[in-house]
């Protein structure tokens, strides 16, 4: 699911569209910088992704355009941006699926570093520390010489499915609740706690989870707008996980 279908087409000159790319420009560090859009013309190429397109702009037209990429394969989660208003991973978005005019903007709801680059890492770290998205085991010291306990393959599969989240932030940008209320933990946070809740190595009880999630900033703040579910580039079953945590939290003894 993470690979882009490559279709080799022999094409002569002028057979591809000329794309008009409007890019949001702003440098918050620079006092004189005024947010605005810059327009670039780029000739489309076969199997062109936004990653390729942006690099072409940076190489041939304007070396100062800022944007983030690491893996260019949909794994690191750093290249998310608004493409014509919708959050997408730029490295996994083919230009051929888009209209001739593209509007690229940084993900809303995160601190702007510059142009298309936002600090999702800071947000995610905050969320992770607040929700404690790591294994909580009462066992003090693990003996690494001992064999680990076995886990049922079905459970492992389920955990793996939720673990695929790349913390790209698309679900935050796609969530009206998160946009309106900055302290909402979002689908990414709720999904991560669901992942630890089904993990048998995590000793936390429902009451423990309730402490961080049983609030209006947590699962009860979600208004089921489902932008997260529809726009998660990893297609995680977010609606289902949020509902699962909501049921557990509604029944939790505190």
């Amino acid at each position: 699911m993470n690979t882009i279908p490559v279709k080799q087409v022999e094409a002569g000159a002028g057979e591809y569209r000329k794309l008009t790319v409007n890019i949001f420009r702003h440098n918050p560090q620079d006092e004189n910088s005024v947010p605005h859009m810059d327009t670039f013309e780029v000739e489309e190429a076969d199997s062109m992704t936004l990653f390729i397109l942006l690099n072409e702009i940076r190489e041939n037209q304007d070396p100062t355009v800022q944007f983030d990429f690491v893996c260019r394969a949909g794994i690191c989660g750093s290249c998310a941006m608004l493409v014509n208003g919708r959050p997408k991973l730029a490295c996994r978005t083919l230009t051929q699926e888009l209209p001739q005019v593209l509007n690229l903007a940084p993900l809303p709801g995160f601190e702007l570093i510059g142009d298309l680059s936002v600090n999702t890492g800071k947000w995610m770290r905050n969320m992770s520390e607040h929700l404690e998205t790591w294994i909580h085991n009462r066992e003090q010291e693990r003996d690494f010489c001992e064999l680990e306990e076995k886990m049922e393959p079905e459970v492992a599969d389920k955990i793996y499915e939720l673990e695929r989240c790349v913390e790209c932030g698309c679900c935050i940008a796609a969530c009206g609740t998160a946009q309106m209320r900055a302290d909402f933990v979002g689908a990414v946070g709720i999904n991560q706690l669901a992942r630890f809740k089904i993990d048998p190595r995590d000793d936390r009880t429902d009451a423990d989870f309730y402490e961080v999630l049983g609030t209006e900033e947590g699962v009860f703040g979600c208004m089921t707008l489902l932008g997260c579910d529809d726009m998660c580039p990893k297609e995680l079953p977010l609606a289902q996980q949020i509902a699962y945590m909501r049921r557990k939290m509604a029944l939790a003894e505190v």
Partner: protein
Amino acid sequence: MSAVEHAVKPSRWPAYMDIVQGATGLFLVLFMWTHMFMVSSILISKDAMYWVARMFEGEPILGKPYPALVSGFAVFILSLIVIHAFLALRRFPATARQYNTMNKHIGNLKHSDTTLWYVQVFTGFALFFMASVHLYQLIFHPSNIGPYASSDRVWSGMMWPLYLIMLFVVELHAGIGIYRLVIKWGLFLGDNPKRNRHRLHVLKWILTVFFLVLGLATLGAYMKIGYEHAHQAGERYSPSWQDPANAAHHE
């Protein structure tokens, strides 16, 4: 409980509020749909509607109709609406900034479930007032329900514009609301949540359209009867199985 304990112990309120908001919503939707079926009995015949109205006044059990039962039930429904609206209100965008963010977000995203939520906010807001007017009328004139009484209220009493608008508002609000509620708690999502959610979405629209058509036909029927009965508005209907001479006695 000490102040410290109080401050540290997580509150159950967010959970309760979410549950009660959903439960009142669910009850109101189910009630509203039942109500629509009852009211639409006029499409069968005037006698059928007469019978339904008397049944809700307790006649089959209590021997004679007690309109106060209708008043009581209307008060109950109104209080559910108040609770539901109060709880839903905390979801509303509260500041101009939040409205702004939401408007931009919805405009950008063009995402149907998010846009539907906005529809729900506005229909909910409108509904609060329209339902209050409707229920106020019922609470204080509970005996004004019947094939002629209702039709006169609709036509000669000029209630039809309100009912017409309210029909669309309530069906939209209820349809969207119950769809969201089902997904919110993860019902019927099964092992293929995306596909099943799509099916629920389709089902929701089918239900909405069905009740809109039924509602329009019903309202049309009352308007027609009210129009034809306008010159003797106020007179009550006597069912065909009753001796007309006894009608006055019975009412």
